[in-house]
């Protein structure tokens, strides 16, 4: 029989711990495929976060460091500044990147560190059981805002791509989604581009990926995909927020 598809060698054979219907696994695959296609597996060093992806070091088939909560961009800075010819990527969720690690995120971006950040936004704290995140939608229920997020009690969700795009240093900023095949393919292109930018010494790239959390959204996997399509995207519109390659061609 002719083999038409196989798992990328940049993912290990370890069984992933993610819940059924969660799209973390898809993003893992897109990153791993990008690394393999670009031929940089032997020189890549990944940083795993704290949160649902805390075990990411078990899945990516390259050198990995597990960072403390929110500090992955600082850890990546430490590695990349010393090993400039290696490829350093960071995988972080919304609590990690946009709440406890906001300072590390903003300053790594402002310094224009030549690293690749993959930012997983599922609008909830998944690993700890569904608490409100900095990206929880207005009206969305969480275990620490059980009647739904209100402006009065909790303020507004933070749009990281839009915020980071106000900085001068970042080279590439895009928000993508995983709710259907078309968008997964778009996400792949964005992620691969973020790695290419680093290989070409262009500087800081961040790809925000909207992913589902059926478990904590209390939805079926299919409902969760629809939730991104119909609701999440209203608060977190998809698109490119900064692309300095455009400036270069002018």
């Amino acid at each position, binding site marked *: 029989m002719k083999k038409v598809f196989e798992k990328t060698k940049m993912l290990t054979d370890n069984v992933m711990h993610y819940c059924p219907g969660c799209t973390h696994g898809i993003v893992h695959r897109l990153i791993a495929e990008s690394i393999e296609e670009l031929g940089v597996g032997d020189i890549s060093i990944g940083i795993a976060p704290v949160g649902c992806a805390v075990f990411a070091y078990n899945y990516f088939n390259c050198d990995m460091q597990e960072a403390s909560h929110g500090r992955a961009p600082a850890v990546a*800075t430490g590695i990349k500044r010393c090993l400039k010819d290696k490829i350093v990527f960071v995988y972080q969720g919304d609590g990690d990147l946009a709440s406890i690690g906001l300072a590390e995120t903003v300053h790594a971006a402002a310094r224009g560190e030549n690293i690749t950040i993959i930012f997983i936004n599922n609008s909830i704290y998944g690993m700890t059981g569904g608490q409100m995140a900095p990206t929880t939608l207005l009206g969305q229920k969480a275990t620490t805002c059980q009647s739904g997020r209100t402006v009065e009690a909790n303020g507004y969700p933070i749009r990281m791509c839009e915020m980071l795009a106000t900085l001068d240093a970042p080279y590439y900023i895009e928000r993508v989604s995983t709710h259907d095949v078309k968008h997964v393919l778009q996400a792949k292109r964005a992620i691969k581009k973020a790695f290419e930018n680093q290989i070409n010494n262009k500087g800081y790239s961040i790809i925000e990926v909207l992913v589902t959390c059926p478990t904590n959204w209390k939805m079926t996997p299919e409902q969760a995909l629809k939730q991104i399509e119909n609701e999440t995207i209203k608060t977190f519109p998809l698109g490119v927020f900064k692309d300095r390659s455009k400036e270069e061609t002018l």
Partner: protein
Amino acid sequence: MSKILLHGTEAICEGALRNGCRAFFGYPITPQNEVPEYMSVELPKIGGAFVQAESEVSAINMVYGSAGAGIRSMTSSSSPGISLKQEGISYIAGAEIPCVIVNVVRAGPGLGGIQPSQGDYFQAVKGGGHGDYKLIVYAPSSVQEACDYTYKAFDVSDKYRVPVMILADGMIGQMMEAVELPPMRDLKTIAKKEWATDGRSGKDRRIINSLRINPDDLENHLNKMYKKYAEIEKQETLFEEYLTEDAEIVITAYGTVGRICKSVVDTLREEGIKAGFIRPITVYPFPTEVFQRVASYSCVKKFLTVELSMGQMIEDVRLAVNGKKPVLFYGRSGGNITSEEEIAVAAKEALK
């Protein structure tokens, strides 16, 4: 080799740079700002990395990254900033990453003051962050020792994969003394780190991690770490002992206060009082055996622990002396420095 006049912070930097330190990450805080300033000038000259981090939290995590990738790395701060680093230090200890952390101690708690203090002893030797772990802690008493033990710290840290702290104080940090500098280490003579995450390059991939979700795994890991600490206690304990053989009173102190106390011993001897002196150079591992031995001397009546704190090392001295002899305390705090005269009076009082 000839001696040159160096500031304490410069001596710390030279000790680091001359033993292969090629990454420094820090954040400004008094009284150690000269360390990041010096490193920002010198590291780029020799191909090293310097970043002024956005916080002490970030700086220690940059060290986690670079040291985890196999680069000899250092950060420096002063008390409140070291408190901020404790999360990172705990992760570094758990992940067994060698690195050097300098604490130029100032008075606390809280914002406290900016004058010299020894109030961070508990934090340094009893585990400042969460969980079961130790740091190897050198407490230099001179600018020369600040240089020498920072140099040594990198070798010892690599050997055991245990983070090392230089517990200095504002006095060491801010004074100038004549120093003989060690020669520049050839980086090729530093052993390659077979565990570092520097890109797998055809080898099996490597992971730097402190997460061990299975209780048995974590317990085994801790047993392994504590086996190393037992070895460190055997191999790496350092102290200075002076005129204890016939002493009636043994004065003990570490760091710059140790130097002052040694002078007091000479003064007391001139007055006919038989005083002796023990100065722990490593405060972890604590030189327990010398205290046990000296406490068993029949001539020794009392110990006097002198600290620039409300009394912290005295607990380790009492544990070591184990009730054989009384252990008394004299200290100044808040950033005040004790004089030789004050200590001499305290020693005479102790003997009454």
